[in-house]
């Protein structure tokens, strides 16, 4: 069965302390891997899409990378406003439904 696993479940960082979040997947025929940010009481906000191993995308303090089995979301010198739940999701190349299968997320807290 296709699965998406995120680790750690929760992460507390001091402001400025860089770290990485992991998303591993067991998908036969990956079409795309997506990162979303979700703040409390809000819907997921799109961050990045990655399509092939070796691809990297950057946005402010965030950088997403992709290998054949996992993706990392690197957070450089985080600020308290980066506190949120980060969700990883995948779509499959088979079929045309382009449905997202989500992991359970990593809850990031950045302390001032």
């Amino acid at each position, binding site marked *: 069965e296709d699965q998406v696993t995120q680790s750690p479940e929760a992460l507390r960082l001091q402001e400025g302390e860089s770290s990485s979040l992991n998303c591993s997947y067991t998908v036969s025929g990956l079409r795309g891997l997506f990162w979303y940010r979700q703040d409390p*009481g809000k*819907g997921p906000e*799109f961050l990045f*899409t990655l399509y092939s191993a070796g691809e990297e995308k950057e946005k402010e303090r965030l950088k997403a990378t992709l290998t054949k089995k996992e993706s990392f979301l690197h957070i450089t010198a985080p600020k308290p406003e980066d506190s949120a739940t980060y969700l990883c999701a995948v779509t499959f190349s088979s079929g045309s439904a382009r449905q997202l299968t989500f992991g359970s997320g990593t809850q990031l807290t950045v302390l001032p």
Partner: protein
Amino acid sequence: EAGVAQSPRYKIIEKRQSVAFWCNPISGHATLYWYQQILGQGPKLLIQFQNNGVVDDSQLPKDRFSAERLKGVDSTLKIQPAKLEDSAVYLCASRWTDTQYFGPGTRLTVL
């Protein structure tokens, strides 16, 4: 550009009552999704529409859940009768190319 709109934002009902949620996708987005997100979990797909037709409703509990998308724009999701385990956030998303854009969700509490 306006995002995905959902209403109501919050709803509290007793078990066995019925409830309906409304979604207005981003203009021009033909594909619309409804998700259920239980606290501490990622969103789980309930149903997918392409224009006004259902693409996939295999994960929709059809004995109590129903959804429609008349005229290929707005959509409604209904639960009748509600159970305690239906307490969750119901998210609507619309898709452009590969990217899904989510609304703010409706938080449902079933007492």
